[in-house]
């Protein structure tokens, strides 16, 4: 922004006074917190306060932010209703698992950090490419489909992926894929979250984002302004799938064990709940929605297991209940389509 003494008539007045938090500042802050935290937990210091469980929770939050933010591209910005996000995640998770265990085990013999980083980069890159490829195909198949039809097709795709993996003995079939090395930690996940949010923000605030929004707002007008809707939609599906694949790749190398059923439509539903809780077409909302949902669910888990262990399983009823309450009372989610200043464009558009 320009200096406050020189008011620009074009800038919105609310933005011109306080010094703006910028994206790079958030990146620095996250890493300054994440790296020492990881080191302390790894070293087992202050373990009464820095419980590894909290770090695990933060890691889960990070992976879910990647999933929700990328689904937001389709459901929030493009205005579609895609129901297969866990399917893309599965493609990424199994690709990364295969790359890490069957293709690249030799890299483990390299010096510890270098070997892990190499495996991580290759496996996550591979996961993103594989998911992006599947996303591109889905985009091709559905290029003329909108609304309910697209929802059903993507849901069907999710089921196909899960059922297909269950029948592939090579990756463990229904028993799941075991023995994946734990190549990720909280720092790696945090870096991936920052990458995802940064890239999505950049795209949304470019001509690509404006075109996606215009399709959501009025597809006919967008088309008659020269937008090739199949092409724009295909890009959105490819990019969203790539990041879902990234989350899957992280997930596999964090849990060390994946089963097809962890990527079925109930995972998709969970991603949807967090998305709607936070707010559509808002990356800030995606972050907030994931944090709020995860913290709420963990609190419930602790409360129930402490005070009413016989009700512990009822926790899973809460998530659909939240969705119903949001839809009835606050359809725009916690944040609507507002953004925190560090996710807004520089020129105050």
């Amino acid at each position, binding site marked *: 922004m320009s200096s406050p003494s020189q008011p620009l008539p*074009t800038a*919105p007045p609310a933005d011109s006074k306080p010094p703006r938090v910028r994206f790079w500042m958030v990146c620095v802050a996250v890493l300054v917190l994440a790296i020492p935290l990881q080191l302390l937990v790894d070293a087992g210091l202050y373990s009464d306060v820095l419980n590894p469980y909290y770090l695990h929770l933060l890691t889960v939050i990070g992976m879910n932010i990647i999933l929700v933010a990328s689904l937001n591209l389709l459901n929030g910005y493009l205005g579609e209703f895609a129901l297969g996000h866990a399917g893309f995640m599965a493609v990424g998770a199994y690709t990364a698992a295969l790359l890490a265990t069957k293709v690249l085990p030799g890299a483990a013999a390299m010096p510890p950090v270098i070997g892990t980083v190499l495996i991580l980069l290759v496996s996550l890159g591979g996961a993103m490419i594989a998911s992006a490829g599947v996303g591109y195909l889905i985009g091709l198949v559905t290029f003329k489909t909108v609304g309910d039809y697209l929802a059903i097709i993507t849901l069907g795709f999710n089921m196909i992926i899960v059922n297909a993996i269950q029948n592939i003995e090579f990756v463990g079939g229904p028993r799941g894929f075991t023995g994946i090395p734990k190549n990720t930690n909280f720092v790696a996940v945090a870096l991936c979250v920052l990458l995802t949010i940064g*890239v999505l923000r*950049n*795209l949304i605030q*470019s*001509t*690509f984002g*404006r*075109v996606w*929004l*215009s399709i959501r*707002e*009025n597809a*006919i*007008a*967008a*088309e*008659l*302004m*020269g*937008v*090739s*809707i199949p092409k724009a939609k295909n*890009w959105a599906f490819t990019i969203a799938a790539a990041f879902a694949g990234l989350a899957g790749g992280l997930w596999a190398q964090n849990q060390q064990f994946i089963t097809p059923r962890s990527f079925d439509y109930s995972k998709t539903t969970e991603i949807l709940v967090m998305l709607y809780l936070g707010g559509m077409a808002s990356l800030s909302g995606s972050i907030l929605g994931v944090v709020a949902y995860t913290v709420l669910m963990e609190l419930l888990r602790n409360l129930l297991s402490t005070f009413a262990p016989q009700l512990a399983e009822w926790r899973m009823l809460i998530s659909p209940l939240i969705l119903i309450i949001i839809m009835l009372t606050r359809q725009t989610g916690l944040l609507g*389509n507002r953004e925190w200043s560090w996710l807004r464009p520089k*020129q*105050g*558009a």
Partner: protein
Amino acid sequence: MALRITELTKSFGGLTAVAKFNLALGERDLQGIIGPNGAGKTTVFNLITGVYTPDSGQVLLGEQDTTRLPSDAIARAGIARTFQNIRLFAQMSVLDNITMALHAHAGYGLLDATFRTATFRREEARLLTESRDHLARFGLLDRQHEQAGSLPYGEQRRLEIARALATGPKVLLLDEPAAGMNPREVEELIQLIRQVHQDFPLAILLIEHQLPVVMELCREVQVLDFGQTIASGGPRDVVRNPLVIEAYLGEEEAPA
């Protein structure tokens, strides 16, 4: 010749919506299509812009045959339009409505946008400047940060015309731009269209229900009724044509 249409025909089931429609729209020409409700006027626009595919006939934009191209390709070839029921990107800002229209001239790719390269920053700044200049020409600059859907009706019309012009068309199709306007707004609209016709190097084809607009602006007018052209010529001659009076004016004593 900016736009030449020959024998354009479209039927829906047994109903012929447009029958053998012909048009010769010269460079920087301004012509009108009038006719009672359901005469097929908007269908002509939908055929030109590829929303419907014609059964037969041909549309030539300059030298290029656009008859069977998809809508987006026709738009990129240089035909822009507005809609009878305004179709703005309501929840986008006024500025973004215009900047979006420049998407074909963005001058950067997906990777540039992903990593905010120097090319991206330069081109994006250019797009914003062009958009703001464009808004200023239409007196909408002070509205740039408002949601397009929150503008008053007359300004929404103006923004829609501005957005269509931002694509840099060779032919502009205006579908009932004065619909729902009061006499003062209609007067402003006539001024606006006249100004656009003067300032931009393009030809305009106008569908209108309100005769004053057509009478004041159009060099030549065609009258459609039940998909047929029943008269054409200078606006003053056309409205005296008994066929037209019977089909159009006789039916509606006071055109809405």
